[in-house]
């Protein structure tokens, strides 16, 4: 009964309004402190936090915010959100709609400004018109003119190009004015929704105008960067050094929108809130893990970017390795950004590549074929792709994790475009029972027990296990027990970007990978890319589950890919 209740109650906006681990843990530490005298070198953190000096002038805690009050939403402090590249695809399809959705759900602070920056000769009104059109077209929640008209008063625009000093001076001055007129208190988050090659220009402008400086602004200054975080370890290090230097490392928010998805967060609830799964979550019981991210679309007009990048850099390096880290990490000591990122980092550092890359790393490229009843062209025939391109649209690799928990368990990871359907899932395949008292023919159709976390679509969890087929004979066959996230909690899940933008404004970095995680991930990808330099991708027909070699790679280990 309690389980059902816990799950039900975790769904709402108010549910995550406060982290609840603080109070009781503090009390425990204090009582332990009394018992164990030898530990009394200095007061533990918990005590000093409770009895420190009064800190004027800001109230240290809000008397109206009670951790037990779960109806009140988490609303950020007054702030501005500055978007560079507001005319771009990402801004129109994701960011502006997400901001409207947040406003509609009452999750924006009363004092809020959305500031757009682009090379257009525009006034506030022109930008507002673009934002309205984008929000109306792509918003998740119902459209309300009321909500928009209130938000539209808080939308500002600054025109200029990124190398224009005057434009950035104006931007800095505008932020200063808004501090008083709109009460945003010097708080601002800068969203870099621009091509990565422009990051240095923009960051240097922010450094020059001191816009990134917390102390000069008298509030917080944060920056949001989008993938790709570099194209190899070296470039990632340079990029990290630059952003972490202009801002401080803790004020940098790297978006991996997969982490904003409800099911990915549910993975942590599943693993760490339940007694049922953790005991078998290790090499003693797990045979192998398969992580799949399949897309049915092709490269859709992003040829220039994609051809230089490829599937491994575009998807494997970030989304898939993050999913792997969340699946394989140890339990964080507390549910805080630092603790979770620490555990993820440990796993990422423990990842090993197969010695024999020729047999256990496969890259593919789609050929022409039929998908969902339509003829589609080959990758090399896509617009703006060189006809002799060797970029991969599919990548699969067997990874290992060198820890006591996972020693010997292969993690098969794959991603591809023009596969039969769009699906992302994590499948944990358990070992077969060591002994079956049934005759061989009785259990012919019995496979591995599986726990499948469906990230998208049909978010949810499936448990596959053997069950007797009704009838007079003993015959065991696999059945699936399904938990559909959208069914138990039909409150439609917020878009990943809604959640992530809100977290940036709240300063909660739990769902954002840290610089070392990015670098560790490149350490996995770089040797693969080096090996693939001299290995052209294998062709697969569009509409198939990837190249034959990928199937052979698992067959060699006596396994097969799940059909997701």
């Amino acid at each position: 009964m309690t389980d059902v209740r816990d799950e039900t109650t975790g769904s709402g906006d108010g549910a995550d309004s406060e982290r609840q681990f603080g109070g009781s843990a503090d009390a425990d530490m204090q009582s332990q402190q009394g018992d164990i005298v030898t530990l009394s070198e200095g007061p533990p953190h918990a005590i000093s936090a409770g009895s420190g000096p009064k800190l004027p002038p800001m109230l240290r805690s809000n008397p109206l915010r009670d951790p037990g009050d779960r109806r009140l939403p988490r609303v950020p402090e007054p702030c501005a959100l500055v978007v560079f590249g507001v005319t771009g695809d990402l801004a129109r399809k994701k960011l502006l709609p997400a901001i409207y959705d947040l406003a509609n759900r009452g999750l924006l602070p009363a004092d809020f400004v959305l500031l757009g920056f682009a090379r257009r000769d525009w006034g506030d009104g022109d930008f507002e018109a673009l934002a309205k059109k984008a929000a109306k077209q792509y918003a998740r929640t119902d459209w309300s003119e009321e909500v928009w008209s209130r938000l539209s008063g808080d939308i500002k625009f600054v025109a200029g190009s990124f190398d224009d000093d005057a434009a950035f001076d104006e931007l800095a001055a505008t932020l200063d004015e808004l501090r008083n007129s709109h009460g945003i208190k010097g708080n601002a988050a800068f969203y870099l929704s621009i091509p990565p090659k422009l990051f240095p220009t923009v960051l240097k402008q922010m450094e020059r105008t001191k816009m990134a400086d917390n102390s000069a602004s008298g509030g917080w200054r944060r920056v949001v960067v989008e993938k790709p975080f570099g194209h190899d370890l070296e470039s990632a290090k340079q990029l990290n050094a630059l952003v972490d230097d202009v801002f401080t490392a803790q004020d940098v928010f790297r978006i991996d929108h997969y982490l904003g998805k409800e099911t990915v967060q549910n993975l942590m609830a599943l693993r760490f809130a339940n007694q049922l799964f953790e005991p078998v979550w290790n090499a003693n019981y797990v045979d192998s893990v398969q992580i799949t991210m399949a897309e049915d679309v092709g490269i859709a007009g992003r040829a220039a970017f994609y051809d230089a990048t490829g599937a491994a850099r575009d998807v494997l390096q970030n989304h898939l390795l993050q999913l792997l880290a969340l699946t394989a990490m140890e339990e964080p000591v507390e549910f805080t950004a630092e603790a979770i990122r620490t555990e993820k980092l440990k796993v990422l550092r423990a990842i090993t590549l197969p010695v024999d890359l020729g047999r256990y790393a496969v890259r593919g490229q789609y050929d022409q074929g039929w998908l969902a009843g339509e003829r589609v062209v080959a990758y090399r025939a896509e617009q703006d792709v060189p006809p002799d391109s060797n970029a991969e649209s599919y990548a699969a690799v067997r990874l290992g994790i060198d820890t006591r928990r996972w020693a010997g368990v292969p993690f098969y990871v794959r991603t591809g475009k023009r596969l039969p359907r769009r699906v992302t899932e994590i499948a944990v395949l358990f070992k077969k029972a060591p002994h079956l008292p049934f005759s061989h023919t009785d259990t012919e159709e019995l496979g591995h027990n599986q726990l499948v976390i469906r990230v998208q679509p049909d978010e949810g969890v499936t448990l596959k296990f053997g069950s007797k087929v009704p009838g007079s004979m003993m015959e065991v066959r696999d059945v699936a027990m399904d938990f559909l996230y959208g069914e138990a909690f039909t409150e439609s899940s917020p878009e990943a970007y809604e959640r992530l933008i809100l977290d940036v404004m709240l300063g909660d970095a739990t769902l954002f990978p840290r610089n070392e995680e990015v670098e560790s991930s490149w350490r996995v990808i770089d040797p693969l890319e080096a090996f693939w330099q001299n290995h052209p991708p294998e062709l697969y027909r569009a509409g198939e589950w990837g190249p034959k070699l990928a199937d052979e790679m698992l067959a060699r280990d006596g396994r097969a890919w799940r059909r997701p």
Partner: protein
Amino acid sequence: MTTLWDTTGTAVVQALAAERRSGGAVTSGLALTLVVVLEEKDTAEVEAAVATAAAKHPMRVIMVLRHHIEAPQPRLDAEVSIGGRHGPGESVVLRMFGRLALHAESVTLPLLAPDAPVVAWWYSETPEIIAHDPLGVFADRRITNVIRDSDPAASLQQRAVDYAPGDTDLTWTVITPWRAALASAFDTASSPAKSVVVKGNPVDPSAQLLAGWLSSRLGIYVPVERAEGKYISSVTLDFEDGRNVQMTNEGYKLLMRRPGQVDTLQPFPQRTTGDMLAEELRRLDADGPYGEALGAVSGQSGLNQRPAVRKHIWHDPALAAQEG
């Protein structure tokens, strides 16, 4: 939909099972059972509210309508449907006549979803003592609606007398947007509050609960001063450092006025009963802040320390009417 006239509880259970089988997989993940106690005149409103809430919480809804307990012959009529006008979930409408109405649990208990929490909601009238209604005794959460009683202010006081953790009232749910706005205003406060005044209708339970909540959280007495309007019209906050904030309900909008700063207008959504019911169903454990606010309104302390489980007290309205 299956309609059963003059039927038995067992037949209703079987009808529900049959509907579930023919309905296929759509109904597997039930999170709770909602038992609504209502009067015939309110069915349309309750159906609309339940449909809204059921879209957010997969649940089984059991509506209990009690008729003519003095009727000589007990009788049960039932309506079973899945995915109909009561939203996407499962629903059972039970009309009970005669003495059966006093034993509603005998039909309701076998219909509860296995091992899922039970929420009871009295829509039309709040029982004076919840323990008199067996449906309120097995419910994990109990939602009342004093605004529909003849004297809502007195009814709210009675809620405090009868309170057990797990009770809430919709006059409390109504003020969540107010409370969220006030909490945000305090996020940026630079000193403690010196005085706070709620203006509105002093006998409105929501105005009282808002003032009660503020006093319980701030540790100062917060009065409700009479002003225009039926409910809450404004809240004024004065801080020790001399700053002040005035928040006024402008109908669908909340105006926040602070000296030296531009006024802000926030959307102040008018929520339907269904929206509020959905908010109630989001958490199924006791609502501590409500208990504290109700304690402040009624001058009683220790409400949240009372036992959460009620014992049924046999109560026969027919006898009570004779005696009284």
